[in-house]
């Protein structure tokens, strides 16, 4: 029944694509590289569906509870005692769900790129990077060991660096990929320290053992981790906070969100992949994976998760309202939606009915993957058509891009939470979970959902309605079958994914969670969303000067939002003014004068001495013989008279 080989093949197929295309792609199989990568990924997708089907419907459930299965485990590095770094596979509901999401979205992106990247010189490199990215993300979600997850976590960071910087001759892309790498790397330091602390106190790196030891009350490991405290907070909570810093860096949570908008410099399908299915949800996945420890042993850390998520959701939504680059609007909407997932986890409890937030978060991850990938691919079609990212160059495109128009509308309705589209169901669950536990976060979430509807429909009306530009008519067609098929498939997903009884499959403790659909709870978010949509329609459906007037009347806030609340400037201030001047410059001085000085002094002394004594080497053989004789006599004298 449970055969580990084909599960291991799921990540290994994209890896094979990476190796084949990376080695031979540029010279030998350039023109078929896209097809090869797509076929490999299609095979991986089929295997993922097979695995998930088998897990959910055949062998995963034991006594009504979804078990954590370890079909493969290979000890790689054994440290003292039980601490070992393993390479293994762990299957549980969220892993299976992530396998489905990643392979499906990645497949859509692969197909879409067949048309989108046509004519690109380095298409084989592009597909090999996509394969590496997909491989690292798939391997990340099936990890059975916390150190294994860290390895692939870094690999995800690396491959996103490669993809964001794909157009490496563009200075802005180079800056963006460096920024993404440095910011996430900085956060990963927290994750690493967190891992070390967790493994020190629990004596293991294996997920199952780790969670078991640190959640069962009265266990020696748990009490030792709880008894130590630093600044009034237990060491375990600190460890979980550090792990969360790593997760926040990857998921672009406040205040580490600065890299994500710049990451839009990569090719648009890559943005779809990074934002919908892979990199940014890795943080949510990590928190979900360690959720029992968060919920049962470190509730303070979980509260931090909730507030960070809520602040990010609100802040990013406000910023998104003022951006004009369509990909940046989508980037901030991603931050906002990831914020939703985070605070849904944050307000959740472990087990039973109160674990609703956990299910809701995973559900939102699932639906968000569908509609966010759709939005990005739709935006890609628009950019492909217009050759510009700016909203002011667009308008009236519904006639030219009918399929994109309809699917984009579906995605906007889904993200705004209008029934019966996917986002409605997941958002409703998130908000009811927040309602049960924390009213502040509930109101933030509600307000954010109104803002979400507003800025998404601002985008929608700005692109597809508004004033038509006369230059559009001379453009080419919509992009062909390879671009339209993913849009249609994702559109179906975004419309219908909400009807999956998600609680039956994914819940905090593995047992099925009855979805208790509460009609009263849906009124407020839908009302907020409708207000947002109507406002956006009133302002942006036709060309007028109302938006400018409103922007002028709140010019302070508008400017702040347009400049992303000056976070980049703050970071620049901290790094340039404080870090560079106070730490880097003195360090550079010491390096130049002390370290280099020592090395140079050694060299200079050698040169000085050798200049003085080089005359000895005169080239006259007989002179050398005299030196030799003098030496020999001196030695003889020494041996005879002193060496008794």
């Amino acid at each position, binding site marked *: 029944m449970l055969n580990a080989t084909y599960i291991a093949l799921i990540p290994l197929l994209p890896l094979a694509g990476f190796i084949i295309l990376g080695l031979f792609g540029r010279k030998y199989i350039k023109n078929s590289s896209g097809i090869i990568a797509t076929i490999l990924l299609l095979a991986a997708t089929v295997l993922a569906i097979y695995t998930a089907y088998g897990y959910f419907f055949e062998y995963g459930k034991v006594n009504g509870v979804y078990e954590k299965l370890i079909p493969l485990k290979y000890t790689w590095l054994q440290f003292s005692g039980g601490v070992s770094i393993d390479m293994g596979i762990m299957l549980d509901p969220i892993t299976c769900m992530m396998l489905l999401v990643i392979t499906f979205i990645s497949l859509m992106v692969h197909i879409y790129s067949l048309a989108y990247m046509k004519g690109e010189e380095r298409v084989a490199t592009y597909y090999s990077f996509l394969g590496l990215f997909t491989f690292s993300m798939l391997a990340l979600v099936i990890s059975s060991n916390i150190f294994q997850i860290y390895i692939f976590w870094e690999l995800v960071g690396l491959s996103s660096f490669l993809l964001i910087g794909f157009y490496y001759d563009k200075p802005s892309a180079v800056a963006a990929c460096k920024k993404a790498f440095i910011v996430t790397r900085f956060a990963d330091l927290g994750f690493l320290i967190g891992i070390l602390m967790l493994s020190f106190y629990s004596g293991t790196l294996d997920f199952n053992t780790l969670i078991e030891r640190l959640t069962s009350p009265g266990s020696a490991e748990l009490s030792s981790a709880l008894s130590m405290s630093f600044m009034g907070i237990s060491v375990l909570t600190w460890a979980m906070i550090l792990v969360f810093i790593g997760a926040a860096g990857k998921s672009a949570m406040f205040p580490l969100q600065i890299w994500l908008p710049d990451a839009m410099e990569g090719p648009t399908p890559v943005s779809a992949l990074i934002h919908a299915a892979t990199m940014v949800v890795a943080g949510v996945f990590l928190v979900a994976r360690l959720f029992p420890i968060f919920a049962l042993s470190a509730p303070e850390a979980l509260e931090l998760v909730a507030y960070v998520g809520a602040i990010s959701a609100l802040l990013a939504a406000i910023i998104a309202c003022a951006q004009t680059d369509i990909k940046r609007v989508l980037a901030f909407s991603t931050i906002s939606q990831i914020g939703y997932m985070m605070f849904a986890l944050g307000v959740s409890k472990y087990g039973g009915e109160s674990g609703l937030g956990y299910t809701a978060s995973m559900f939102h991850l699932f639906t968000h993957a569908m509609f966010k990938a759709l939005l990005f691919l739709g935006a890609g079609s628009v950019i492909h058509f217009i050759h510009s990212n700016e909203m002011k160059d667009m308008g009236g495109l519904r006639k030219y891009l009918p399929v994109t128009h309809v699917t984009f509308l579906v995605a906007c309705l889904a993200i705004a939470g209008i029934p019966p589209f996917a986002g409605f169901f997941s958002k409703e669950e998130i908000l009811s979970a927040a309602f049960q536990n924390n009213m502040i976060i509930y109101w933030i979430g509600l307000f954010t959902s109104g803002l979400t509807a507003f800025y998404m429909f601002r985008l929608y009306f700005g692109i597809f309605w508004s004033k038509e530009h006369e230059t559009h008519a001379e453009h080419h067609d919509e992009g062909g079958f390879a671009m339209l098929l993913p849009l249609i498939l994702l559109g179906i997903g975004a419309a219908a994914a909400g009807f999956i009884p998600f609680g039956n499959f994914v819940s905090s403790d593995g047992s099925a969670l009855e979805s208790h659909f509460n009609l009263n709870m849906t009124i407020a978010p839908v009302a907020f969303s409708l207000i947002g949509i109507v406002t956006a329609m009133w302002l942006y459906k036709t060309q007028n000067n109302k938006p400018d007037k409103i922007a002028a009347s709140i010019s302070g806030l508008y400017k702040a939002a347009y400049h992303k609340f000056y976070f980049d400037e703050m970071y620049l201030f901290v790094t340039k003014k404080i870090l560079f001047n106070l730490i880097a410059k003195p360090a550079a001085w010491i390096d130049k004068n002390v370290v280099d000085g020592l090395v140079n002094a050694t060299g200079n002394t050698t040169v000085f001495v050798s200049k003085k004594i080089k005359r000895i080497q005169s080239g006259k053989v*007989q002179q050398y013989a005299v030196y030799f004789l003098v030496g020999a006599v001196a030695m003889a004298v020494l041996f005879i008279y002193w060496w008794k």
Partner: protein
Amino acid sequence: MFEPGLIHILFISTALFFIGVFGFFTRRNLITILMSVELILNSVNLNFIAFNKYLWPDKLDGLFFTIFIIAIAAAEAAVAIAIIINLYRSHHSIDVSNAEEMKY
């Protein structure tokens, strides 16, 4: 008849040695320098023979060493003459003071 003792032979060999050293340092002609080296080697040979004969007449170690040194000297002469020929080809002279390019 006068029977030479060990001291006489040592005197001769010391004289030979220093004549060789003096020649080695003062002569500029490479052939003469080679001859001086041979003088030095032969003074050593003489020492070996003398010590063997006068101090341990029942042993042959000194003789062996002498024969060994003669063989070495022959080889050394071959190498030295090869060097001299090459030097002559490149400098058209076998005067060592002309060959002093290999310096600082």
